[in-house]
């Protein structure tokens, strides 16, 4: 059965800290791995990764995929209170279906 596992499930840090969120997967038909940020409402798109070893960056956020070891990490440097959210990892299959992990809840304290 297709599975996406995120760790840790929750994390509390202070502003300025750097965090690393993990996502491992077992899926039959892998197309891409996506990261989303969910605050109070809709998940908002962060990154889509399809190739191993190529880092994607957006400001203080970056992500990389390892298709051999079947995992991805999301890094956030110099965290701010506005980074507090649930971070969701998902795998896209060849049908377009997204299979989500359970999410990592990040709380950044001032």
């Amino acid at each position: 059965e297709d599975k996406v596992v995120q760790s840790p499930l929750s994390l509390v840090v202070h502003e300025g800290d750097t965090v690393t969120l993990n996502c491992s997967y077992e899926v039959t038909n892998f197309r891409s791995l996506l990261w989303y940020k969910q605050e109070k409402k809709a998940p908002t798109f962060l990154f889509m990764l399809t190739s191993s070893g190529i880092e994607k960056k957006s400001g203080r956020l970056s992500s990389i995929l390892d298709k051999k070891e079947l995992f991805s990490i999301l890094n956030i440097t110099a965290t701010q209170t506005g980074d507090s959210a649930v971070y969701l990892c998902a795998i896209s299959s060849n049908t377009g279906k997204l299979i989500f992990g359970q999410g990592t809840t990040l709380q950044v304290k001032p």
Partner: protein
Amino acid sequence: DTAVSQTPKYLVTQMGNDKSIKCEQNLGHDTMYWYKQDSKKFLKIMFSYNNKELIINETVPNRFSPKSPDKAHLNLHINSLELGDSAVYFCASSHRSGTGFYEQYFGPGTRLTVT
């Protein structure tokens, strides 16, 4: 300039009723999806339509029926609502190319409460 919109945002209804949720996207995408997010925040795919054709139909009770009148709209009708249907329902859309699907963009969600 809303990209993916859903109506209503909140829906409170009694067991046994029938209700509909509507979704519209103005991104020019050709594929739309319905997801259910339960109380543990776990997001799970329910249905997907590509160019008005059903392409994903997960194990969902047949009380749930999606309808796509055109590429920009995907509605969800639920018959005989049950307590376990209480959840947040998200609509999403994406573009499909010959090699696969691009990233999905989500609507604001509809919080359904069945009493």
